[in-house]
């Protein structure tokens, strides 16, 4: 657990970066500090490992005042991931990762073995261990940065906009990877970003800071989206927050109706017979959806149904309660050419269909039963 007690950072020129911040960060969770530039989020993060010294107030890490230790000693016990990875260009990947264990006195050979294991942990092939950072892509460098921060197995991990310099696709991968890692490691992670979507995706709790370094709201992502405390938070979390809030409700509540399916390669006449309200889903041998056929699309087709004859489908969503959300269900319905979103089971086979109406009905029920924060 990390505790900010009335922490203030005032620079010699009088600027106040952080103003009497009180914040309790839960152990074993991801806490995201988010806000516009100048809100003191990075300063707050860096006061935890004393890269920036607080002007007043106290920061406790697991009950101990950070000022009780020398900065270098304190920092060796706290993982730190920096924007652009900040890898040492003159050291190989393995030696970069082994930095902190070696500083802590681990023998070089043992530290390197541990570093190679960490390559597995962050999803990099071990062959990369002998390369220099300049030989890696941005995303790979960032993974090495995470491995380096984890090397001494610190209980606390500080991440300062670690994914902001990589392209959106790679960023998405890295975010998924971080969530997967966290589900295995259960570190206390403090994550700084200016991207509210990233905050909502990663955070168990999100602290929204406003310019001048004060806390605007500190809540779970779902509550933040549903009940922003004021106009600043509302505008910061964004215009489509109502839609994004659906991401926190399980798709389980949405009623799935049976869908008419046709295997690829069936006679066109059989496909015509299978149409329901003018549409049917075409599936492969594993019953995975390939696309749609409609009375219009079939009117010019003869013989057997080929993949070229299909109308391409919309997004899919997982019907099982664990991974599917009302947001993905609604998106499936809205993006489908037939207006019916396809639900798939854990094997990827068609489980049924949902309409936008059934998603909204599920939302209504969740509201009444208290499933939506209010």
């Amino acid at each position, binding site marked *: 657990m990390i505790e900010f007690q009335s922490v203030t950072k005032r620079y010699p020129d009088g600027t106040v970066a952080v103003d009497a911040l009180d914040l309790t960060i839960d152990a074993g969770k991801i806490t995201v500090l988010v806000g516009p530039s100048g809100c003191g989020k990075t300063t707050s993060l860096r006061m935890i*490992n004393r890269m920036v010294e607080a002007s007043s107030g106290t920061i406790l890490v697991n009950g101990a005042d950070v000022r009780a230790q020398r900065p270098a000693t304190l*920092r*060796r016990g706290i993982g*730190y991931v920096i924007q652009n990875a*900040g*890898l040492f260009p003159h050291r190989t990947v393995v030696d970069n990762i082994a930095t902190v264990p070696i500083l802590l006195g681990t023998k070089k050979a043992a530290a390197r073995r541990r570093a190679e294991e960490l390559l597995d942990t962050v999803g990099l092939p071990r062959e990369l261990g002998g390369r220099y950072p*300049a*030989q890696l892509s941005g995303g790979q460098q960032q993974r090495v940065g995470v491995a380096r921060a984890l090397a001494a197995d610190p209980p606390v991990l500080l991440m300062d906009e670690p994914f902001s310099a990589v392209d959106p696709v790679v960023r998405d991968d890295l975010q998924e990877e971080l969530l997967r890692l966290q589900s295995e490691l259960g570190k206390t992670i403090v994550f700084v970003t200016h991207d509210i979507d990233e905050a909502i995706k990663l955070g168990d709790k999100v602290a929204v800071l406003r310019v001048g370094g004060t806390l605007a709201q500190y809540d779970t992502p779902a509550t933040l989206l549903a009940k922003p405390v004021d106009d600043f938070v509302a505008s910061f979390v964004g215009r489509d927050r109502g839609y994004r809030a659906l991401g926190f409700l399980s798709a389980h509540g949405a009623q799935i109706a049976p869908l008419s399916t046709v295997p690829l390669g069936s006679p066109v006449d059989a496909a015509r017979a299978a149409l329901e309200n003018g549409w049917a889903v075409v599936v492969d041998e594993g019953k995975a959806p390939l696309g749609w056929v409609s009375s219009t699309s079939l009117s010019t087709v003869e013989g057997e149904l080929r993949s070229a004859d299909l109308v391409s489908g919309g997004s899919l969503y997982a019907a099982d309660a664990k991974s599917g959300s009302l947001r993905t269900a609604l998106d499936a319905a809205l993006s489908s050419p037939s207006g019916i979103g396809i639900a798939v089971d854990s094997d990827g086979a068609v489980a049924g269909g949902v309409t936008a109406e059934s998603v909204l009905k599920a939302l209504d029920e969740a509201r009444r039963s208290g499933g939506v924060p209010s």
Partner: protein
Amino acid sequence: MNWILDHIPDLLAASGDHLQLALIPVVVGLVLSLPLGWVANRWTVARAIMVPVSGLLYTIPSLALFVMMPLLLGTKILDPINVQAALTVYTVALLVRSIADALAAVPESVVQAASAMGYRTAGRFFAVELPLAVPVLVAGVRVAAVSNISLVAVGQIIGVGGLGYFLLHGAQTSPPNFQEIIAGIALIVVLALIVDGLLALAGRALTPWTRQQVGRAGGGRRSRAVVVK
């Protein structure tokens, strides 16, 4: 050629002296410049004073510096220390700026990361900043070494000049002994080329990472492209 063949042992011995006179100051100058360069990089005020002053030192004519040394150091006029001390001054004058620039070129994110990993100031300097400064540093050391090898000859004016002896002696002989003069000049040039080449090789051996740049990383000097998936 007769003179050269007759004097090979003398030429070799003088070459050895010459190298010693030129290179000991490089080593001493390097050791002195490291903390000075670090200070110049660390504090803006120090840099504003030290870089111009070291530039100024380099403009003092070598002859003037050589003859001043016995006065400054209280040494005997023929003591080789006079030459070595003067050349050390030139080396420091060249390297302080090199080192300050090289350290300033280390990316701030890397320095920050090193601090955040738990390096203290001295550890960070030797483990991170200095290795990254090596390419620029080696360039400075090569200039200083070659410059010193040529300047040693001037020391012959105060009686300590390694191969410079043959230049002066050959010129003062009547008629001038051109074989002797040319042998001296040629050896000085050869020594400079060899030392420069060895330092360049050493620099490459110390910085394997600079040869492994991918195009993306700005196409570092003489980069061999390595394909990464």
